[in-house]
C-alpha cells in the first residue's frame, strides 16, 4: 500500500515542496507527514495545509492533483518511487540520485536539473532546461534517465555530462547546448541551433535539422549503439519504428568552436530506404 497525497487546496503562489519524496515520508504516520514543512510563497506552511494524506508509506508515494504550482517535488530524491497523477511545477527531481518519478501529466522547467541517477518519466510535455545545469554552473545532468513523451522547451540537456534524455516530441531551441557527454534522443523535430557549443556527447534525432555551420558532415552509417538505445526506449513505451532501429544516420561532428568531439546523428530516411 502506498502513501497517498491528494491536493485539496491549490496553492495561489508557488509552493516549494522538496519534502514530497518517498524517503522523506518513509515511516511517518499521516499526522507526522502532514507536519512536514513546505514554503508557500514567502511563508512557511505544512504539507497538511495543502494535501490530504492517506495510506501508508511502503517506498511508493502517490500524489494526485494539479501540482503545476508545486515546485521541487522529488528534488534530491535518492530512492523509492513516486507517481504524480497530474501535472507538476518546476524543478521536478532536481539533483536526484536514485529512484523513479513518474508524472502522468506535464512538468515545468528544470526537470531533473543536475540529477545524477534514477529515472524521471513525464508522460506529457516538459518545460525549458530539462536535465540542465543551473545558471552559473557548468555541468548539468550527470547520470540517470529522463524520459519525456511529449514536447520540451529550450536548452534541453544544457551542460549534460552523462545519462540519457529521451524526448518523444519536439524540442525548443538549443537542445544539447554546451553538452559535455551523454545522449539525447529526440523522436520529434529539433528547434534551432541544436548542439551549440557541445564538446562531446550524442544528439540523435529522427527528423532533418538545420545545424550550425560549425558542424561538419562525416558520413551516413548505421551505428549499432543507436539500435540499443532505441530498443531500450521502445521497451519503455516510446513509439519507435523498425526503420528507425534498422536505419542509417547522418553523422555530423561538432561543435567546431569547442572540442568538436560531439555528434549529431540525424535519421536518414532516404538512405535507410535505399539500404533495404
Amino acid at each position, binding site marked *: 500500500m502506498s502513501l497517498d497525497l491528494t491536493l485539496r487546496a491549490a496553492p495561489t503562489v508557488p509552493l516549494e515542496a522538496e519534502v514530497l519524496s518517498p524517503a522523506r515520508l518513509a515511516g511517518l504516520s499521516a499526522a507526522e507527514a502532514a507536519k512536514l514543512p513546505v514554503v508557500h510563497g514567502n511563508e512557511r506552511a505544512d504539507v497538511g495545509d495543502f494535501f490530504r494524506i492517506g495510506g501508508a508509506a511502503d517506498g511508493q508515494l502517490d500524489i494526485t492533483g494539479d501540482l503545476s504550482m508545486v515546485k521541487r517535488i522529488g528534488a534530491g530524491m535518492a530512492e523509492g518511487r513516486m507517481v504524480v497523477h497530474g501535472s507538476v511545477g518546476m524543478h521536478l527531481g532536481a539533483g536526484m540520485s536514485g529512484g523513479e518519478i513518474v508524472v502522468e501529466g506535464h512538468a515545468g522547467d528544470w526537470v531533473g536539473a543536475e540529477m545524477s541517477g534514477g529515472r524521471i518519466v513525464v508522460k506529457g510535455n516538459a518545460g525549458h532546461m530539462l536535465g540542465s545545469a543551473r545558471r552559473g554552473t557548468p555541468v548539468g545532468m550527470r547520470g540517470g534517465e529522463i524520459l519525456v513523451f511529449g514536447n520540451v522547451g529550450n536548452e534541453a540537456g544544457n551542460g549534460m555530462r552523462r545519462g*540519457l534524455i529521451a524526448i518523444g516530441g519536439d524540442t525548443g531551441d538549443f537542445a544539447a547546448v554546451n553538452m559535455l557527454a551523454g545522449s539525447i534522443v529526440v523522436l520529434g523535430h529539433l528547434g534551432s541551433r541544436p548542439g551549440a557549443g557541445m564538446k562531446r556527447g*550524442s544528439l540523435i534525432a529522427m527528423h532533418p535539422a538545420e545545424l550550425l555551420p560549425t558542424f561538419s558532415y562525416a558520413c551516413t552509417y*548505421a*551505428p*549499432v549503439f543507436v539500435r*540499443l538505445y532505441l*530498443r531500450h526506449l521502445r521497451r519503455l513505451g516510446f513509439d519507435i519504428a523498425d526503420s528507425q532501429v*534498422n536505419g542509417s544516420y547522418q553523422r555530423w561532428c561538432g561543435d567546431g568552436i569547442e572540442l568538436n568531439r560531439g555528434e549529431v546523428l540525424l535519421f536518414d530516411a532516404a538512405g535507410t530506404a535505399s539500404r533495404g
Partner: protein
Amino acid sequence: MLVRGVLIEDTFAEAFTMRVARLIITGRTPRWAREAALKLTGFATSVIGCKCEAGIERELSEGETLDGRPGVSVLFLTMDKESLPQQLIARIGQTVLTCPTTACFDGLPDVPDRLPVGKALRVFGDGFQGSKVVGGKRYWRLPVMEGEFLVEETFVMQKGVGGGNFLILATDADAALAAAEAAVAAMASQPGVILPFPGGVVRSGSKVGSKRYKKMIATTNDAFSPTLRGITESQLPEGVNSVLEIVLDGTDGPAIEAAMRRGIDAACRPGVKAITAGNYGGKLGPHHFHLRRIMGGAPRPA
C-alpha cells in the same frame, strides 16, 4: 547396461573446473556473425595446445540479441582466471573487431566478477573511441574504416566445466564416424555446452604425459588406439577397430550431463560395440560424469 545393444561401460568421464565466458556476436546478417564466431573459435580445441577452448553454442535469432540483429552465442574457456581476459582480448581484437558489421556483447547473467575486455580493446580507437551507457551497462564505440565496432565494456567470468567426454568404440571407422556425427547432431545447440573439437569429434584422444618423451604433457591414448592393440595394454574390447571421442565443455555440470545423455543415446547405433569415457581414476578432476547414471536418468548427486 545396454542401450539398443550397445554396452554402456560402468565408468565415468572426469572433468575439470575452468573459467568460462559467453560472448554474443551479432552481425548485419547471420553469415557475418557466424564468420566472426568461426574465426574466434578457430584453433581453440584444447588448452593443451591452444591455451583456451571455445566453440559455438548456438545461433541466435534477431529476437534473442541485444541489438536485434542475428547473432551467435560462443562459450570461451580457459584453465585459470588470468588467461581468460588475455585470450579474450587477443581473440576478439583479431577476429570480431576485424569482421564486417559485427558487435560483441556479454552473454552470461550479471555477476560482480567481470573482465575489462572491451575496456582494453577500446584503445584501438586511438583516442577517437567513445562510450555509451544503455540500461546500466557501458559499451565502447570504436571507429573503424567500415563504420563503428561496438563492444561491451566488461564480460562476466564464472566457473565452468571442461573435459566432459565419452568414447565411441565401433567395429570400423565408418560406423564410428556415423555414430559420432549422430551424437554431435543430437547435442547441437544444447544450452550451456560446446564441443570444441573439429565437427565436435576427436580422433586423437590423449593420455597425460609420455612413456618416452619427458617434455610432452600429452601423448596418444595408446590404450584406445586399435593399431597398438598387440603392443600396448589395450583397453579395447574384441572387434573394435576404430574409436572416436566427443569432448564437451560447458557452463555447469547439469548442462554437460544433459548433452551427454542426448549424445550417447544417439551414438548407440549399429556398428557401435560400446560407449566408455576417459578419466584419471578420479584423482585429478572434481567433476565425475558416470555414464550409467546419466543414461539411467538418475539424479546427479549434490
